[in-house]
């Protein structure tokens, strides 16, 4: 992360990706904050699954998500119908801007001036706060981590723990400066201060905006997973509740939710369950004494239906947003979430963001991986993340005849020189005579081989060609 964290825009400056990574790697505070947090999360996850048949459970998770995706359009219609029967208004948005306009129009119709928000990554994707601000509507985050990030005018650095990049001292200073709390390293005190400040806001907010973890088609139920209670406040206290969600979050039944919930919280934070699991199926009924009068659901596409077209890329949409892939990623742990400069960081960001922003703008993302495979091994719904990274790397250099590239912005990394070299390489390896001749010449002149090879040899010794080729040695052995 650079000293002043920039807002995440849809416009990533590709040129800035490497300086950002470089700065993050050389920032000991970032390294320490992420290392200790990710180590803790990995061991908590391991403990939470103790005694489980995790492989079978992950198979079930994957199958449920695949089942939902196979019936996606039908399920969305069923969800809409059920929710409508329950009194919830359903809206559809092709992209983030349309989703923002829908939220604005609901707010304007109610003459709303203030919006309180529960945690929602889709709203980050939409850049909703920024948009509403421009429309004269104040949007305040109520999840403690999001609240801290908003005070700092930053973006989340982790999808589950948005303020993981900051330590207590930094948060204390920030709250002191922005809200007048005392300087203190007492987390209890800082939390209590935020509670006090936010309770006022809950009471006065006109609209509550939340995300959705699972949308259940069978019963028309919006499920929210949280620990703080801000999600319940957001969806209960203001007179109007607007839920925003990606179209892929729909599942057929509550039974499916029971399995995905078991996977989600354990994978995310190593909790057997979160403090609150909130299931909302409609606005306040006439005889009820609290709850919102109006409930809206905004179904956001924003690139998802494009991902849906391709049999392989489709797996990206299985994601239940647990964050386990980033917790286990050696790259994420070292550079932190802000270095990516995208709404979703880490492995899931690397396979999702290229679709949302185009592979031209996100060309660096699929390569920012060592392909170690940890993300795929821990994914609770078995998304083959490493395979998808390789696929997107192919797309970024425009694929080949057998695998034509499809993703928007494909081919952005293609260089004709590189393509020619690989063509030559392939030709040489397919022609035994040329190969033998080429390797023979290369080992003769091995003394001329440079000992430096750009950044590669900054931390490594350059490989040296052997004095004799394998062919020559086999020949000497007497065949």
């Amino acid at each position, binding site marked *: 992360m650079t000293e002043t964290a920039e807002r995440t825009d849809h416009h990533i400056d590709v040129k800035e990706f490497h300086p950002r990574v470089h700065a993050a790697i050389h920032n000991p505070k970032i390294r320490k904050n992420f290392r*200790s947090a990710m180590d*803790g999360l990995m061991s908590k996850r391991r403990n939470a699954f103790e005694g489980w048949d995790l492989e079978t459970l992950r198979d*079930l998770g994957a*199958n449920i998500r*695949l*089942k939902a995706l*196979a019936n996606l*359009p039908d399920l*969305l*219609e069923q969800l809409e119908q059920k929710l409508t029967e329950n009194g919830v208004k359903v809206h*559809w948005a*092709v992209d983030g801007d349309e989703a923002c306009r829908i939220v604005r129009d609901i707010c304007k119709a109610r003459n709303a001036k203030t919006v309180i928000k529960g945690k929602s990554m889709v709203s980050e994707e939409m850049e909703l706060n920024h948009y509403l601000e421009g429309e004269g509507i104040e949007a305040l985050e109520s999840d403690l981590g999001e609240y*801290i990030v908003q005070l700092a005018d930053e973006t989340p650095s982790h999808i589950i*723990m948005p*303020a993981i990049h*900051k*330590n*207590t001292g930094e948060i204390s200073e920030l709250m002191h400066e922005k809200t007048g709390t005392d300087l203190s390293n007492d987390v*209890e005190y*800082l*939390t209590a201060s935020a*509670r006090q400040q936010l*309770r006022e806001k*809950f*009471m006065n907010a006109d609209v509550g905006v939340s995300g959705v973890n699972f949308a259940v088609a069978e*019963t*028309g139920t919006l499920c929210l997973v949280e*620990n*703080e*209670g801000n999600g*319940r*406040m957001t969806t209960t206290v203001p007179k109007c509740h607007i839920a925003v969600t990606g*179209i892929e979050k729909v599942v057929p039944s*509550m*039974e*499916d939710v*029971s*399995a995905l*919930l078991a996977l989600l919280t354990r994978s995310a934070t190593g*909790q*057997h*369950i*979160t*403090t*609150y699991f*909130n*299931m*909302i*199926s*409609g606005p*306040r009924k006439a005889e009820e*004494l*609290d*709850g919102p009068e109006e409930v809206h659901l905004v*179904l956001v*596409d924003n690139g998802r239906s*494009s991902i*849906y*077209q391709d*049999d392989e890329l489709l797996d990206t949409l299985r994601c239940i947003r647990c964050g386990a892939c980033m917790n286990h990623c050696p790259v994420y742990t070292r550079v932190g979430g802000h270095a990516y400069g995208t709404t979703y960081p880490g492995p899931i960001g690397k396979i999702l963001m290229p679709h949302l922003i185009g592979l031209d703008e996100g060309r660096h993302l699929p390569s920012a991986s060592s392909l170690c495979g940890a993300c795929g091994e821990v994914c609770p719904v078995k998304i083959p993340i490493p395979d998808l990274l390789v696929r997107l790397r192919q797309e970024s250099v425009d694929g080949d005849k057998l695998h034509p590239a499809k993703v928007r912005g494909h081919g952005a990394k293609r260089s004709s020189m590189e393509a020619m070299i690989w063509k030559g390489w392939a030709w040489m390896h397919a022609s035994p005579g040329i190969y033998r001749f080429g390797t023979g010449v290369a080992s003769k002149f091995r003394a001329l081989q440079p000992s430096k090879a750009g950044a590669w040899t900054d931390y490594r010794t350059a490989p040296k060609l052997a004095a004799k080729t394998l062919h020559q040695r086999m020949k000497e052995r007497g065949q």
Partner: protein
Amino acid sequence: MSSRETILQRLRNRTGGELTVPECDFSVLARPDWPTNERIERFEKMIESVHGEVHHVSEESWMDRLAEVLNTRGARNLLVPKQHEIGQALRGAGRDDLPELLIYDEPIESWQAHLFNEVDASITSTRGGIAETGSLILWPNNDEPRLMSLVPPVHIAILKASELYTTFHEAMKAQNWAAGMPTNALLISGPSKTADIEQTLAYGVHGPKELIVLIIE
């Protein structure tokens, strides 16, 4: 064409191959049919591990224990359901060791500030519990509205040991949730908490600081 039609049409006319619907076998979620005492033990262990407090009581003794719990915390008042037997029993008991009893019988709009600032504790019933995760099942209604279990700093819940299920999956099957859900349903597993500041746990961030479960055996 509306956005709805655009999206649905794109999904229906996908270019890829036919998508198959895999079989989903939920048996991995099943746990042995633990006897009641083991369910209670597991429930207690799980909810205590997240800072919940459990008291074992009987039909006769729960009110005594409740009075103790409230007195040690110096609660000035207790929000009780109006119609549920818990509220009826408390209001009919005429005990002087209980704090002032309040009922939630008017819309939130008319007493929001009072609820947020003046109510010290609440007591609600439950629709059962889940042993595996240490969770309470609540279906708020007009007798026990949604904010009753959320806003007061201390939430006390009555759980009948006979209504303790093994898993969430089992509970929703037994109660036939597929047939229809209420406007709001909840699983509550401990007091409100956060670890958003450097992964340090702090309780009572937005909801109750304390969750106290009275298990009636």
